[in-house]
């Protein structure tokens, strides 16, 4: 199925107007020998029904977590998504429009993103949010670059209990930029080793990264940590789960300089990990060093309120190599999803999501604490996920669980060998039911019922 609308007759008229008799004349600037010899060797074209059938088949070869009892987390969560989010984001006024450069005919996108920025500020307690980054990991990497730029050099301290995927991206960016990373281990209880942090801070440190909750799901002592970091004259970059901010002190409360994180939890499907939504919010004083687009309220010629992109002199299309970042396209539609999500849930509902996730994860934790043959190394100071240690290799358990429709968690053994080959990261969101939680317990106890 071709989407070209011109007919042969149209093309003929157009060639005539151009003054050529065959299309190839226009290709004159391309040396003949550089041109493709034959047609591209691709599969035969399909009609719409053929595309639907093929993709239905491909989709059918997947077993999506969203249909299972998924205890997978580690940054991407299986949550309830309101129909409102799908309704709004599938309106073509939003999804087929470009970046709102022509503000007069883009007020819809502009106001929606302005509201997104405001919502992120409220969730994080920060002063200014940008219009989105690619994902939580690159947002963190950009925050590290930004902090290094503000501090005019200096290493960046990164907790060991950070998502390995985030760490890999951070490594990649900081290596390219030539920034030194130093890892701070976790203490026995799984949270950041503050003694090691204190000693590391004695050298010139641009920034310290805080993961809140950390990769093990544990809540870090944010105020204490912030005091330490700021006491050493470094910047604090908080990488937070936005849903946790409904319960936990948000970065703004403990004075983080830059807050970043992954917004997938805010109404985005898991989508095999993309597209995601990186958010970044900063203290006002740092706004001109911030990467990414910013939408501002203003007025039009008649004094009417309207919205525009602002502080573009930070951006690549104006400042080029001196820009705060190279980012151009971002994740606007995902930011819209998050705005709709937060508005739909509202003050009560957003807290309810966090509170249920807390309650349900702690319910499972308590059940497992009473179950023989597994260990819970780090205690109950977690938000919605925790580390579970099985006596045997996690792979076997995961396989068994999968046969009962349970996705049992993310194995930690490869990235954190010190936790053993039986270690799993287990997330329990508000979407999990009592039966699913009990089934999980039963599986661990070795008596998994049929599902």
């Amino acid at each position, binding site marked *: 199925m071709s989407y070209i609308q011109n007919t042969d007759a149209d093309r003929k008229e157009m060639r005539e107007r151009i003054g050529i008799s065959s299309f190839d004349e226009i290709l004159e600037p391309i040396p003949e020998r550089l041109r493709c010899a034959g047609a591209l060797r691709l599969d035969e*074209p399909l009609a719409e029904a053929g595309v639907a059938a093929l993709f239905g088949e491909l989709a059918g070869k997947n077993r999506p977590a969203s249909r299972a009892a998924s205890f997978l987390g580690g940054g991407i969560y299986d949550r309830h998504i309101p129909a409102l989010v799908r309704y709004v984001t599938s309106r073509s006024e939003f999804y087929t429009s470009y970046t709102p450069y022509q503000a007069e005919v883009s*007020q819809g996108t502009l106001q929606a993103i302005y509201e997104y920025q405001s919502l992120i500020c409220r969730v994080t307690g920060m002063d200014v949010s940008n*219009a989105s980054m690619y994902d939580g990991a690159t947002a963190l990497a950009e925050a590290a670059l930004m902090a290094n730029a503000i501090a005019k050099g200096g290493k960046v301290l990164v907790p060991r209990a950070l998502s390995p995927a985030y760490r890999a991206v951070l490594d990649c960016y900081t290596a390219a930029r030539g920034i030194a990373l130093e890892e701070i281990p976790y203490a026995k209880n799984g949270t950041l080793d503050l003694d090691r942090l204190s000693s590391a801070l004695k050298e010139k440190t641009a920034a310290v990264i805080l993961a809140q909750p950390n990769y093990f799901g544990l809540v870090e002592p944010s105020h204490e940590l912030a005091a330490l970091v700021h006491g050493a004259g470094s910047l604090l970059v908080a990488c937070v789960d936005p849903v946790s901010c409904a319960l936990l002190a948000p970065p703004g409360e403990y004075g983080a300089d830059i807050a970043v994180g992954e917004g997938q939890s805010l109404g985005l499907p898991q989508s095999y990990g993309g597209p995601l939504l990186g958010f970044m919010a900063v203290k006002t004083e740092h706004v001109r060093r911030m990467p990414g687009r910013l939408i501002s309220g203003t007025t039009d010629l008649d004094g009417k309120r309207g919205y525009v992109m602002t502080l573009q002199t930070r951006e690549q299309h104006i400042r080029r190599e001196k820009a705060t970042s190279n980012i151009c396209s971002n994740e606007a539609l995902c930011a819209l999803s998050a705005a709709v999500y937060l508005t739909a849930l509202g003050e009560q509902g957003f807290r309810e999501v966090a509170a249920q996730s807390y309650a349900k994860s702690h319910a499972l934790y308590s059940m497992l604490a009473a179950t023989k043959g597994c260990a819970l190394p780090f205690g109950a100071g977690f938000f919605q996920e925790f580390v579970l240690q099985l006596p045997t290799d996690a792979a076997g358990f995961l396989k068994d669980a999968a046969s009962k429709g349970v996705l049992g968690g993310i194995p930690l053994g490869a990235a954190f060998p010190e936790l053993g080959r039986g270690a799993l990261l287990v997330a329990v969101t508000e979407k999990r039911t009592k039966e699913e939680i009990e089934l999980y317990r039963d599986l661990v106890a070795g008596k998994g019922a049929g599902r």
Partner: protein
Amino acid sequence: MTATVFEKSKPGRRGYRIPEADCAKGKIDLAGLRSAPPGLPEMGEQDIVRHYVELAAKNYHVDKGIYPLGSCTMKYNPLVNEEVARLEGFTGLHPAQNEADCQGALELMWRLERALAEITGMEAFTLQPAAGAHGELTGIMIARAYFLDRGEKRRIVLIPDSAHGTNPASVAICGFTPKTIQSNERGLIDPALLNREMTAETACLMLTLPNTLGLFEREIAEIVRIAHAKGALVYMDGANMNALLGIVRPGDIGIDIMHINLHKTFSTPHGGGGPGSGPVGVAKHLVDFLPVPRVTERKGAFALSTDGPKSIGRVHPYHGNFNVFVKAYAFIRSLGGPGLREVSENAILNANYLMARLKNSYDLKYPGPCMHEFVLSARNLKKYGIRATDVVKRLLDYGIHAPTVYFPLIVEEALMIEPVETESKETIDRFAEVMEKIAGEAETNPAMLHEAPVTTPVRRLDEAVAARCPDLCCPGDLE
């Protein structure tokens, strides 16, 4: 004016409820709790729907009319692509699921990579980059790793003055020094000049093909030869690939690294600014440096390989913007090889036709056949006090979206126009008529152009105030 959700909020309203908890909800027993609630808006489902329907109506979009933004390839976004991308088998996968549960997704990624390789002639692709600029960064990281691996210290990346701003910005992040090379009077890279600039310090030449003037670098073979002769790599910004499908394969002409924008050439929607997807392709000698994991195939079974000792690592926490891949691959499967060539042929024909229609009303600095886009200049209207901005703002009053303005920087009062292949001759004719009319109005009624737009939801907005005292967050006391 639409009030914000904060202004519309009323305590007690609910737009969505999750099911009641089926387990006890005790006290939150954690240290460091939030001291004050965030202050999220409270609205009912109906009023939220109306809020966004009202906002939506203020947007221009592809489903409304031509969107001739040069360099942005705002083509039609096929409906079936959106439908298949919404299948739960795609949207519901967690990236940590094991490979057996994700065979369809892995197969799709593998096939898309293979298709992009065939289309571009590159050896292999990574799908991780989330946008074009991210692809550039990834590509330059690959170049960096390549030279590191060879033990070569090269610090310079040459970039033509017509390049997109992301090019120098991406280069800078990787610690390279971008160096501008001037275009010649035809808007092209001068091989002689290039030859002089190209040194043993040069890591890359980063060019856009066709370039941002919509011109094909006639001397591309020589250009590539010069770079390679000095041991430098050639990076191609493939944002303009819509001109080359089935016509030129970058891999065939010696390009070492390139990125592609799926959200341009491959019809995935722009979403008001994103998400995009910027896969990076490399020539054989650079395959080892691609990010991991990579999708592998053996006897119809697909797996993820993290094996890559020389790999730059990860530029995305998972596999890239997977849902965008679904749409792009649907587009490729709908069109097939000859269909893709038709895309480029029609994009080029539309551009040349429109250029032929407009070149008498506006200045055309670089004549001759263009590729999929062309750049006019409004400087001929300066004598009436009219600038490119005034022209395009007036276009908005005719219900038509503006072309890109003031880019590329080397054209004064630039109007960069890309009509794309999906627009019909009638639509292009109408656009041309209005553009001609505006050129006339510039002379007869310049005040009207300065006042424009007047039919849009808002008129020209005060950007200066926004930059001086930015209002970036709705104040909290409005609730």
